[in-house]
């Protein structure tokens, strides 16, 4: 019985995988900093690339990544037209710290809160940071788990690659 289940599972995966292509954003609602619901599919950037970065106020590498990019964000925007959307997975323990932290840090990103990780689950995010790059059609063309110093250079290369 188990073998049968596994083989059905494997076959269906195999046949379905032939349809696979670049990910789209799922239709999931997140909250903005006022607490209003926003469907993530409504994100847009006039046909320019969008970076979606999952983070949390308690995550050191996430903050390092976003603080590092914040220093060069203006240049990135001018050169490539990119927009960064930072999605916090802080739950009700720390969600109220998101806005004060973001403002105090002077981040110019678009910020949303995914308090019960519905969007994270819909995009296959299990740990933070997890960064996605979307092309002009809103398709995910690149993604990266974790952050180590210098990873922002690779992200910029990827952005430049698709904004040409």
């Amino acid at each position, binding site marked *: 019985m188990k073998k049968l289940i596994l083989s*059905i599972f494997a076959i269906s995966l195999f046949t379905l995988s032939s349809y696979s292509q670049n990910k789209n954003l799922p239709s999931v609602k997140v909250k903005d900093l006022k607490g209003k*619901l926003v469907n993530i599919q409504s994100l847009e950037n006039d046909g320019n690339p969008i970076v979606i970065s999952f983070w949390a106020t308690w995550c*050191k590498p996430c903050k390092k990544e976003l603080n590092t990019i914040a*220093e060069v964000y203006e240049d990135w925007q001018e050169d490539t037209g990119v927009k960064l959307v930072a999605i916090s997975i802080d739950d009700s323990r720390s969600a109220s710290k998101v*806005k004060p932290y973001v*403002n105090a840090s002077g981040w110019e990103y678009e910020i949303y809160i995914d308090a019960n990780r519905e969007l994270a689950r819909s995009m296959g995010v299990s740990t933070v940071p997890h960064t996605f790059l979307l092309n002009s059609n809103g398709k995910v063309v690149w993604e990266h788990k974790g952050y180590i110093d*210098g990873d922002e250079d690779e992200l910029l290369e990827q952005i430049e690659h698709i904004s040409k």
Partner: protein
Amino acid sequence: MKKILFSIILFTSSFTLFSQDSPLEIIGNFELNMQSYSIDSAIGAVEPTPERVLNNAYLNLLISKGNFTGGLRYESYLNALKDYDPQYKGNGIPYRFATYTSDGLEVTVGNYYEQFGSGLIFRTYEDKGLGLDNAMDGIRLKYSPVSGLYLKGIIGQSRTYFDYSEGIIRGADAEFIVDELLGLEEQSSCAILGASFVSRFQSDNNPSFVLPENVAAFSTRLNLSFGNINYYGEYAHKINDPVGSMVQSGNNYANGKAIVNNLTYSQKGLGITFESHFVDHMEFRSERAQKKEYIINYIPTLSKQHTYSLLALYPCATQSEGEFGFNTNIFYKIPRKTVLGGKYGTKLNLNFARTNSIQGGTSFLNDIDSLTHNAPIFKIKGETLYFSDFNLEVNKKINKSIKLNLVLAQQTYNKDILEGKPIGEYGIIKSTIAVADVSYKIKKGHTIRMELQTLISEDDPNTTEHGDGNWHMILTEYTISPNWFFAIQDMYNYGNYYESKRLHYVNTSVGFLKGANRFAIGYGKKRAGIFCVGGVCKEVPSSNGFSLNISSSF
């Protein structure tokens, strides 16, 4: 078994029925955690079973097409890692769902995670790190009849390990976004009102006592944004829910309540938060039993969530049966090009958090004893201290290649209360912790980072047992962007009261990251301790051995 087979067939065949207008999409992620266990009696690591290697793994799969999404998770515990409950055993598909949206109505059948408000009366979620998953199995509807009004309804049973609760949970939530309802969008102020109701049905099979079969809880909430100021308040009430003990003194018929007040202010360069809560007898469970794996509400812990090892050695945990606490933060960025700010600016975070007992203790009511009272919702003086943490974090970029993060903290930890030990065993442990974290960029992509941490602790003088005493910790990490990391760390319990426990816990790890895949191999000793995420904690046993972690998404 037949059920699983049925759900797979249903799940996969459902896709072929759809028209070809919108493309079919498949995404998912996979995670594997394997650990070997060697005997190490010095640290208290003994073999779990005759088997030397344990493994946890899961695969999430999501398939969507147009307005339809279906998903499942295959979980494998062969056998579960020692820091998981052994009731996670074997393989299975405990999570599968189908959902579609049609003209604003969202229908989900199968498993789902849901949260009402901040979760005071209802939150189901998963946290793989904690081995926690209380997913619902049943039906969920979401509907927005007019712009600004959002409704949710749920019915189902909550998951515990590979089983579902006997209790049936029913609930509804409404949220009104006032300015959307009135068409006043793009204002600097905003008001959101919310209300939720949750009820659990479980038949009363207790031969001795009459127990409520329908246990209700409700909450109301208000979220106000006014320019730079934001307020969030929530009040929750739960009717009596005795655990069904066969002895009279074991059944508490008191109602529960909780009050949350959060106030924040922020402007460019400055952020201030003040959060507080009062909780009395507010544990809400999917079954009439006093076990924490049945909890279906979430009362967040009021303290900073530390990630440095020694700062998190004595973590706070919410006492949902009775606690008053507050947590305040100041975030400030000293502007760049000032004396203290330097070329890049300096970031400060000052945090103070404190929790204590409520006056008179947890409400208690039955025929032989009664302590229902309206304890003051804001009282510190004269109450038993549970936890406090006063800390300052300074984050500074010195120049293009050096970054510095410093933390100084003073913590008090009521080990008896927070770990459920007999009162008077350990009492309150006071500790002072210092952390220095420096990273140095050697050349493009190559960075070396070092953490030095020290903890000096003071035992409670009037107790029978000794805490772990003083610790040092050192970590060195070398990273090569974008693919490699190497790390070695040593935690040294040099100040333990018992000489035999003055041990080193050395760990090494190597990781390879590429795109959406991450591989890590580690070897070393882990200390036994309390591991917490978001205020929910678990006890982790000590271990010595190799570990392998693979994480991937597609």
